[in-house]
């Protein structure tokens, strides 16, 4: 595959791994957080941890959109999906996320009409094809997916589709990062920045991290060579004693982002005063909802939602995993009570979730590396 294989070249990978090994000071331990779940997936899928020296550790961050959805919001989604007139649509990974009362998949087996879509536009097309049904799209994700939701709503209005609405759970990446950096138990040396989010918002919103906290950020692409190069670049900054935002993903990311996507976001969404994050608690100005001008497409206004806050299960340590304080296997229930087939926490659900990625791909590779 052209434009893909080039970024998976094993020879280049080996030489980057050598360069990383040379750069990492032997007496020092490095902890680098990859913010985005997409990077977590790449790291496990290609076995990248194997290629790093033992004193360079990658810590998984809060950037898996499925993992950060709190249980109460899942219950809200299920309540809407169970309504007889509703044809409920969502991305595949949301199906198995446990709420307080089961999952969307359980609701589907019990008769709710829940369908997987690959894009919000597919949901809009379903609404046009089923004018007698109320099609609801469960919108999740960071600034990466929010523009496609915004454009879909614009299209719904332009085409006069009235039987379509959106249950909005979009979130923004900077507030949880800021919360994380304020957390007293955090010990990180630098960040691999979220390339897809940065495609939309640019690299500028991450500049506070080196400026105020003195930690390097390297905005990275998602192929294995991208990630290795970004690790090298973080180490390079640390070795030089500097901290800045470096743009490794310059083939698509600019400093100011994508102005059209940003204007679509500003048009359709507004910030919620606060939003609950799974395991991280309430974070101010971190969630998006539909702006008043788009109220008629807002499922939160169209349907009465239970809106009950459900506390995370006691045994679940997703919060610590999302903050990078615990490695997945250090969670009390990892792999025993909490498995991909019966997840307790969200990190065990999506392929971008740190626990699921480690469970599915990483179990033995790291065991080999450690021995």
């Amino acid at each position, binding site marked *: *595959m052209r434009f*893909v294989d080039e970024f*998976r070249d*094993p020879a280049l*990978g*080996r030489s980057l*791994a050598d360069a990383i090994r040379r750069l990492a000071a032997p*007496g*020092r*331990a490095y902890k680098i957080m990859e913010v985005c779940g997409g990077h977590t997936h790449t790291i*496990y*899928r*290609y*076995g*990248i*941890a*194997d*290629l790093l020296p*033992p*004193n360079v550790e990658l810590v998984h961050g809060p950037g898996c959109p499925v993992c950060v959805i709190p249980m109460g919001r899942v219950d809200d989604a299920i309540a809407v999906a169970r309504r007889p007139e509703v044809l409920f649509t969502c991305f*595949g990974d949301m*199906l*198995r996320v446990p709420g307080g009362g089961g999952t969307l*998949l*359980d609701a*589907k*087996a*019990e008769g709710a009409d829940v369908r997987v879509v*690959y894009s919000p536009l*597919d949901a809009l097309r379903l609404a046009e094809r089923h004018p007698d049904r109320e099609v609801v799209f469960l919108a999740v994700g960071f600034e990466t997916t929010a523009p496609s939701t915004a454009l879909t709503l614009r299209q719904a209005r332009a085409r006069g589709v009235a039987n379509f609405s959106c249950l909005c759970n979009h979130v923004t990446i900077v507030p949880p990062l800021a919360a994380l950096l304020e957390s007293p138990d955090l010990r990180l040396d630098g960040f691999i920045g979220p390339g897809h989010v940065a495609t939309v918002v640019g690299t500028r919103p991450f500049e506070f991290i080196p400026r105020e906290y003195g930690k390097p950020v390297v905005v990275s692409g998602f192929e*294995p060579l991208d990630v290795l190069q970004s690790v090298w670049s973080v180490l390079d900054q640390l070795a030089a004693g500097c901290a800045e935002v470096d743009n490794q993903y310059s083939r698509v990311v600019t400093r100011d982002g994508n102005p059209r996507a940003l204007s679509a976001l500003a048009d359709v969404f507004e910030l919620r005063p606060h939003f609950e994050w799974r395991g991280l608690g309430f974070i101010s100005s971190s969630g998006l909802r539909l702006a008043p001008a788009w109220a008629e497409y807002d499922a939160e206004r169209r349907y009465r939602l239970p809106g009950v806050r459900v506390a995370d299960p006691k045994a679940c340590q997703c919060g610590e995993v999302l903050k990078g304080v615990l*490695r997945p*296997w*250090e969670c009390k229930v*990892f*792999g*025993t009570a909490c498995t*991909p*087939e019966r997840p307790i926490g969200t990190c065990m659900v999506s392929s971008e979730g740190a626990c699921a990625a480690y*469970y*599915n*791909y*990483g*179990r*033995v*590779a*790291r*065991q*080999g590396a*450690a*021995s």
Partner: protein
Amino acid sequence: MSPPEVAAPAARERLVLERIAARRARPALFRDARIGLAHGAGGKASRDLVEGLFLPAFDSEALRQLDDAGRVHVDGLRLALSTDTFVVRPLQFPGGSIGTLAVHGTLNDLAVTGARPLALTASFVLEEGLEAAVLETEVSTMAAAARAAGVELVAGDTKVVERGRADGMYVCTTGLGRVDRRAHTSPRRLEPGDRILLTGPLGRHGIAVLLARGEFELDAEVASDTRPLWPAVDALLEAAGGRLHAARDATRGGLGSVLNELATASGVGIVVRERDLPADPVVAGACEILGIDPLYVANEGQLAAFVAPDRADAALAALRAIPGFSEAADVGEVVAGPPGLVQMDTAFGGRRVVDLLVGDPLPRIC
């Protein structure tokens, strides 16, 4: 960081992993309140259903083998019996249709247990309103496929259900075969050192069906690989005889699921080399765009064979000599352990686990 500090968490990690391995080795339990699509997807839920409900209820020596076909011994004659139901949507797709699948699928389940197919039966569940022309096409397709494989269709049944109770038509076929004299295969016969031969590129069937549904707005020329596999098994037996330890067609759940099943059944480990897997560039591209791992995509004309190392090269050469099998490749080997664990050396140079899938990555494809 001093070495003891590095070692301590590593030792703890190993303990956690051992605890998980012990837990995974426990027998399957079926404890779901309702049937979900995942129970039919060939992954973990399917395993729980089959080994947790069906197996204990219908317990028999043949079933306990968990092979693709059951062995029946009649007056010293070794026979194999297999049955399969086909519910694919759409009924027709590039490279095949429900009719071709219904014949090849069952014959291949016989073939990979080392049985030369002898006869077939077919049951049809038809939906009220199905166009007669569609049925006629499928019936003649099935007849032609059976003839081409040298098998007679000897019995059948028809049921019609109300509109909306079936997707046009479902077909169930049952096949009878005679276990070849040379064949001594079993899912439990994998041995460390066995080489793994794969007959061709992965994922054509699953991707062809997926694209034929037109839900993804992807235009790509991919045809299903549905075909009979007896010629391949025949060649493997001729080249390796009893040194062919096992064969499995990589249908639902793909190669990843098949390797997991056999590693568990034999209590061995498996290591696959990603760079040696034959690939169809169009399938690879579609999988890349859709975020699907080709290792778990269904095939209807590919098998994985586990051959003792001394006969592996001869077996591979024999496979490649059959028309349509020139892309066959040596893709990995059986190792002593960890038992039940499948790993892949990635083309990029790392190593990762290839686990059983939890849910259903794809809609109904066979």
